[in-house]
């Protein structure tokens, strides 16, 4: 099982990084969720592999039960990365509407080109009556 996990992690990381470092926000989102999978599998690996799930039958025998802590942590992490993904999709949608083509290709805010024409500029300087 260890080998399987190792392979899975390696695959996920390779493709995840490839996507994350691609020049598009959309790809980056996908890449991040793949990397998250890899991280979760790694976390499970820290607990070692049990023979039975950490759902007890009340009999009191806990031999070979999987470590519940990593599973709990991973469950938390899964939901967090879901939340982040939701947010990023929202960002993708919003910037797609506001920025057009420049949105899907992430650029730094310091782009001199963008500073010039920025509607947010005037109102964020707070001089609104």
């Amino acid at each position, binding site marked *: 099982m260890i080998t399987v996990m190792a392979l899975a992690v390696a695959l996920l990381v390779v493709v995840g990084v490839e996507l*994350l470092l691609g020049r598009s*926000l959309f790809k*980056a989102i996908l890449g*991040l969720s793949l*990397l*998250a999978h890899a*991280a979760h599998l*790694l*976390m499970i*690996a*820290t*607990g070692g592999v049990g023979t039975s799930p950490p759902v007890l039958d009340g009999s009191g025998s806990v031999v070979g039960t999987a470590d519940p*802590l*990593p599973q709990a*942590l991973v469950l*938390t*992490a899964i939901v*967090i990365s879901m*939340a*982040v993904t939701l*947010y*990023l999709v929202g*960002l993708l949608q*919003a*910037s797609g509407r*506001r*920025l057009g083509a*420049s*949105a899907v290709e*992430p*650029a*730094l*805010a*310091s*782009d001199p080109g*963008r*500073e010039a*024409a*920025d*509607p*947010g*500029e*005037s*109102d*964020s*300087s*707070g*001089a*609104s009556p």
Partner: protein
Amino acid sequence: MSGLLLTALVLPGVAGVVLWLSGSGASGLRRIALGFALPQLVVAVAILRATARGEILVHGFGGWAPPFGIVFVADRLAALFVVLLAVLLLATLWALRPKVHGEEAVARSLPPLFLLVFGLNGSFLTGDLFNLFVMFEVVLLSSYLLLQVPGGERSLSAAYPNIAINLVAALLFFIGVGLIYGATGTVNLAGIAEGIGDADPALRTAAIAMLVVAFSVKAGLIPFLYWLPATYPVLKGPVAALFAGMMTKLGVYALARTLPLFMRDTPIPSILVWVGAASSLIAVIAALSEFELRRLLGFHITSQVGYMVLGLALLSHATIAGALFYLVHHVLVKTALFFVADDLERTSETRDLRSMTAGAAGPAVAFAFVVAGFSLAGLPPFSGFFAKLGLLRGLFVVSEWALLGVLLVASIFTLASMLKVWLYAFGAPASAESTGWWSSAPLLGMVALSIALAVSAGPVFAFAEATATQLLQVDDYLAAVASVQDSRIPAGLEVLP
């Protein structure tokens, strides 16, 4: 007593929910917010007073004794950060005025602002590594929300750099926690400190490296700082001030907490020292070329975080004390400078120094800038001088001559860019119809605090030294955590109708 810790966490959470639910207008929300921020400060000060006496407050959630449950721990370090945050929150709310910054912006800022504090307080107080990770996420998400508030294209395009690097950091943090758990069998900080000795060296080093990279990203150290100058110019002025004061310090806090606890016997700190040195020098030189005020100040943040990190990473009493004192000074002064930036940008309606109308901001702001700017450059008689002196003395004690030189050179460059700001923003005599003293009261408040710090340098430095001692005496921390007992509600508690 330990209820204080819970209160410090709960207050901002409740505030966030209440603010989001209440339908009242911006000024009404602001009143509610202040209503929560004041008790926040009271609680923080109470914690500080308790810890200043040397005791360490603990709170074991769920009544489970560590390492089985999550525990909150407040020693001097945590208390210091909680208090600074409470002060900054108050100042920010004071400065964030609907009339000035727009009804909608204020209304949208307040709830996430408090959830940010929610996460930050949690991060400062928690004694559990994974819990720290979750707290970081809360901070992260709320900061994204704040980043959107100004609206406009720039705040959208600034979002990605900020989010991406922080997500990568979170990823590394998570894996790091995993490796730590694999190496020591616990995620409780105290437990890690006890178990790290017997852990496999290679695994240990790998885990710690990941954590340190994650924290360095938060702290905006070189080469992970690119999100910082991209973000801070976009935020609403006062919120940017809070960020400048606290966000990068979250990384510094995490380092200050973990370095002495369980990173000592790895090569990581010695590397971190030089990362800090490089940050302090390179970033300040980079700032010389900037003309967008807040970007310039952003680079300075990295530079001074570099000071603190190298002080902390040297792991010697003198340097840690110096770094902590420097941190207090830095938080106050940097916040003040961002308030100044906000004032300047509003009075001359531009972010670029070159197109600012010199002297438009009025004598109050000019005075504040003189104090804050020269203080930042470490010139006497301002707080920065004593901060610099403390660090230099520390480096002297451990005879790190090269670092000493780096600090000296960096401080000259800092002075140079402060003078540049002075030229463009205040180079001409103040115009008559400039903003009065009251309108820049929060700013003057921060400046007053910085002056007070300079005057009462003795006591504060004593506190910093005590904090350093406490950080280096890990046993006290462990003992305090160990003192948490199982305190469950007796099973079968009958509540009959």
